[in-house]
């Protein structure tokens, strides 16, 4: 308890020389990334859940419909994309829920660091542990649906771009519904309409990859959607979190 006086003075000194916020922001962002990664690594079932869901859905389709490779190849692009989209949606509800329940979210909102950037760090972790693994898994599941050989790379790449947009857009919905005790259904209703453009161009890219023409255009639009989401979503997430905490 002794020495608090010197500490307070030190604190005041930092207040004066606080014109080095960039490094402070970098430290905070890096720590938030590391903390969230660590948290999710310790609760692996939460990370595995969407991946298992994705694999199960894709496995069941050939059994349920028909093992005919021709038929499967026609529906494969849409099927893979829809399943990946729903898997990503499944994992969204927990994005801010834990932080809200234990009071960390309040603390996040009261830091002098810019909230949009911190929210972006949290979304990045979500994407790294759901979107990216989904994209990497998709080609393997594509084999099961006898997806034509040339389109695997396009599939994975379209999912890498697309799921990043899905994470960003979904985080807005997750932030808006975090204060509600059963916000899961509302979250889906809020977010799904915004997912549709990503789904159209994502599945379109794979379709075009199979035909062998025009995949680049679809991927470019997916990239544009991601750029737009990257620009706008962090601010929308931050505002939504403020609204949720206000309630």
């Amino acid at each position, binding site marked *: *308890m002794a020495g*608090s*006086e010197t*500490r*307070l003075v*030190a*604190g*005041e000194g930092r*207040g004066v020389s*606080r014109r080095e*916020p960039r490094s*402070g*922001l970098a*430290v*905070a962002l*890096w*720590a*938030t990334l590391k*903390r969230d990664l*660590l*948290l999710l690594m*310790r*609760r692996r079932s939460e990370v595995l859940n969407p991946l298992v869901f994705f694999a199960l859905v894709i496995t069941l389709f050939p059994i349920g419909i028909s093992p005919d490779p021709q038929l499967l190849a026609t529906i494969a692009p849409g099927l893979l994309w829809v399943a990946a989209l729903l898997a990503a949606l499944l994992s969204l509800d927990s994005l801010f829920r*834990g932080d809200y*329940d*234990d*009071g*960390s979210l*309040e*603390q*996040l*909102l*009261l*830091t*002098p*660091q810019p909230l949009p950037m911190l929210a972006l760090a949290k979304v990045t972790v979500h994407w790294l542990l759901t979107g990216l693994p989904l994209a990497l898994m998709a080609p393997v599941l594509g084999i099961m649906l006898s997806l034509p050989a040339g389109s695997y790379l396009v599939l994975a790449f379209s999912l890498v771009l697309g799921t990043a947009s899905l994470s960003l857009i979904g985080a807005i919905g997750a932030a808006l519904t975090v204060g509600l005790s059963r916000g899961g259904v509302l979250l889906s209703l809020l977010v799904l309409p915004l997912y549709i453009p990503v789904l159209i161009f994502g599945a379109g890219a794979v379709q075009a990859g199979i035909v062998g023409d025009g995949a680049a255009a679809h991927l470019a639009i997916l990239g544009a959607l991601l750029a737009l989401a990257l620009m706008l979503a962090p601010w929308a997430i931050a505002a939504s979190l*403020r609204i949720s*905490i*206000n309630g």
Partner: protein
Amino acid sequence: MTLSLQARKLACERDDRWLFEDLDLDIQAGEIVRIEGPNGSGKTTLLKILSGQLADYQGELYWNGAPMREARQAFLESLLYLGHAPGVKGALTPLENLTWYQALAGQRDNEAARLAALESVGLVGFEDVPAGQLSAGQQRRVALARLELTPRPLWVLDEPFTAIDRDGVAALEERLIVHARAGGCVLVTTHHELRNTDELRRVHLGRGGQSHGGF
């Protein structure tokens, strides 16, 4: 150190009921301000308004003379808020929990400071135990370690004594007084009776609360 937090004509309505109206507050450096009142009288709401978390109120807030809207960044850099929920992650160890708070405050990674902070709240030997396995009081102590770890002049503490044992309560009370004497400022709600000192000031809420006496 000069700091002042002023509220002018503060009023807050919840569910068609005024929690408080025309509340004027003047909080200066060197003060411990205890917000009192029965359950449901709006203590937590007032603390949330004063710490800039709620925007749903009438009246004006001033930080060091400047309106809160303009001074928000400077205000947040001076504020340490501990809420009802301790903000401690059960899956992380106390040390890892504090790492995040240290970084959020913009400080460089400094394990010695974190260990010292944990020692000051009596958690030596629990640094690497997942916080979920600690008792409620110990988890609260992890949160309280932030008082030492990230020095800020203004402390806003919502029921900080919850689940803390008798020795811990005495130490924390002493800590609040030391902080106020060093020029800091403490805003606190608690049902624990604080020792009367020169620093202590009371603000009573409660006309709006419906349950007086009885239970």
